[in-house]
């Protein structure tokens, strides 16, 4: 067993295992806190999944089972919700993410060219992650930054008035960092 790093035991109505995961991973404790705030209500499933993805980066099958058990929901329901919404990812994401907005304004202003350019540069398909796990290329259904179209979100930061050259430069920087 891993050395338990979690805090002191606290009595909980959910039984002795509550708040502490056998792995000793502290993130479970933080996830538990979110569930507790929502009184372990099944209605809070989406909130809990958001928090889980924030903590763990993606939603592993074991994690979904853990949530299902805690919220007293059938695993099918948790899996069904996790796969229904685009925002949840069941696979690990790359170290860097490049999200190209494909809203109408961005589309009209040439977002498709940006995607093709990145796909060719990094040899990665849209919606996938490079083999070395460095880059995930994704699209968004409009991030509401239409005034500065085309927009690209680099690691969570929105940049406006982009074009293929600028994006390539940026992505190259990330990829070169690794090889350099």
């Amino acid at each position, binding site marked *: 067993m891993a050395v338990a790093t979690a805090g002191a035991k606290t009595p909980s109505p959910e039984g002795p295992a509550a708040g502490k995961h056998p792995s000793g991973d502290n993130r479970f404790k933080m996830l538990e806190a979110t569930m507790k705030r929502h009184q372990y209500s099944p209605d809070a499933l989406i909130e809990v999944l958001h928090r889980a993805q924030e903590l763990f980066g993606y939603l592993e099958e074991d994690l979904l089972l853990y949530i299902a058990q805690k919220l007293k929901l059938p695993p099918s329901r948790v899996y069904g919700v996790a796969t229904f919404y685009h925002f949840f990812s069941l696979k690990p994401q790359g170290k860097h993410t490049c999200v190209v907005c494909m809203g109408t304004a961005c589309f009209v202003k040439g977002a498709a060219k940006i995607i093709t350019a990145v796909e060719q540069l990094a040899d990665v398909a849209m919606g996938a992650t490079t083999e070395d796990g460095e880059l995930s290329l994704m699209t968004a259904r*409009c991030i509401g930054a239409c005034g500065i179209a085309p927009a690209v979100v680099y690691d969570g930061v929105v940049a406006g008035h982009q074009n293929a050259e600028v994006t390539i430069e940026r992505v190259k920087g990330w990829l070169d960092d690794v090889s350099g």
Partner: protein
Amino acid sequence: MLVDDLKEIAEKEKASHKAIRIHVCSSTGCISANSLPVRKALEAAVKATGLDHTVEVVGVGCMDFCGKGPIVQVVPEGTMYQQVNEENAPAIVAAIQAASNGTAAPADAQTPEQAPLDHPFFQKQLRIVRENCGKINPEKIEAYIAAGGYQALAKALLDMSPAEVVEEITQSGLRGRGGGGYPTGLKWATVAKQESDRKFVVCNADEGDPGAFMDRSLLEDDPHRILEGMAIAAYAVGASQGYVYVRAEYPLAIERLNKAIQQARRQGILGAQIFESKFDFRIDVRIGAGAFVCGEETALMNSIEGRRGVPRPRPPFPAQKGLWEQPTLLNNVETFATIAPIIKNGADWFAGIGTDKSKGTKIFALTGKIENTGLVEVPMGIKLREIVEEIGGGSPTGLPVKAVQTGGPAGGCIPASQFDTNVDYESLGKIGSIMGSGGMIVMDEDDNMVEVARFFMEFCMDESCGKCIPCRAGTVQIHRLLTKIRDGLATTDDLQTLEDLCDTVRNTSLCGLGQLAPNPVLSTLRYFRDEYTSRLRDTESDRSFGTVPVPGAMHTLSDLHSGPDGLPAESPL
């Protein structure tokens, strides 16, 4: 909290304002254009010149001119600068200093360009819903109260009965701003007359239409106005719990909304016994998870309940059985943001703006191939031409404007020949489009309409929730046919199949997503049919000889399972 406390807070806030304020846009658009470092640089420049006892730098919401950000405005004097960078800060402060000394501004190469405030982009606007946007600090409840905020709520709670509030909204003629245009007063009255001790008010902030960002801007720039509108609605219909369902793609809006709710709760404006009345109301935020269909009201309610966002059949309508089977009032962000001014100024005032059947103003997000990109609030009934050519300033590409797309994936493309149409619910419907939530994307002669229709169909195909077959399978087939047409592989029969299929999907889908998905195809077929027919494989002469090529005219099994390039396509079922 009493009404007198509101006055006190307002006076205190106004007294704390310095004589000159430099407003810096701190909303998503300008932040991504680097406005936060600009704000810091301005603060430093003010300090460096020792003006900090009379001048302050304030982060405010969007000032409409999003394409030219970061935007900075000096108030009360009014000069607005566009595309400001950090190096410009000392020059802006020097100009303020010169003005307060009564001398001419020093010539400085670093002075940024001024925004053309006398341009129709600003002059033709009528800011009612967005009156505070770009003028107050959205992260401070005191700033909202100083601008007259929460007085409409106090008036409703203390001077009006719930029935009077509903009547006022009905009289105003306000119609749902989410796109449908259903009379808001009627909706409120339906929920109000339901017998139930538990009712809900839900704000639909799942602004999914690509090319629309009016709601994001309202949430970021003036969140308290939405809370106030929701609270008034809750009082009118007898609800005590509200939800705002926001898309996860709008992190700043979520942050500001949460902050606003917390501040309102602390001030006693949300919670129990608001303004010492018997009215209790609390609001929680629910975050979406990237499903377009959740903008549909019944799907949205499923999502709030923590389920897959699939629509429910109606009836029962949400007003009768909504969230957790209880009567639920669902309105769009812009609708709620319009409530406070109506209660404050009266129904007659509001009904005096706009046209006979479409009252008030509407906010549009003007984007695409247009000179002036940004948000514009205009009175209903304005001509499309005024928006595109005068306010928007036409196309910057040198090519003529070809069409305007309104209503997102559910709307249509309006050709330049129809630009003399009035912008109201009925007129836009007549020419095959819809008002929609307010996205207006301008396209020029370079844009291919088959490609545009295909783009929207791809969107609907991906976003179809899969619950009903017409939408799930129909959008896939329409997309395939459009791809075929684009690639020059289709025949006249394919075009006929496309039109028939559009008709079926429109008439048999369960919810708005499917029912409206064929709109972009049908409207482009109506106005730009030659762009479709010129790509067909069989020409006029082929048909006259009765030799229509058979392949593609009928769907064989292998046809269904392979894409146009011979690669396996996704199964439609």
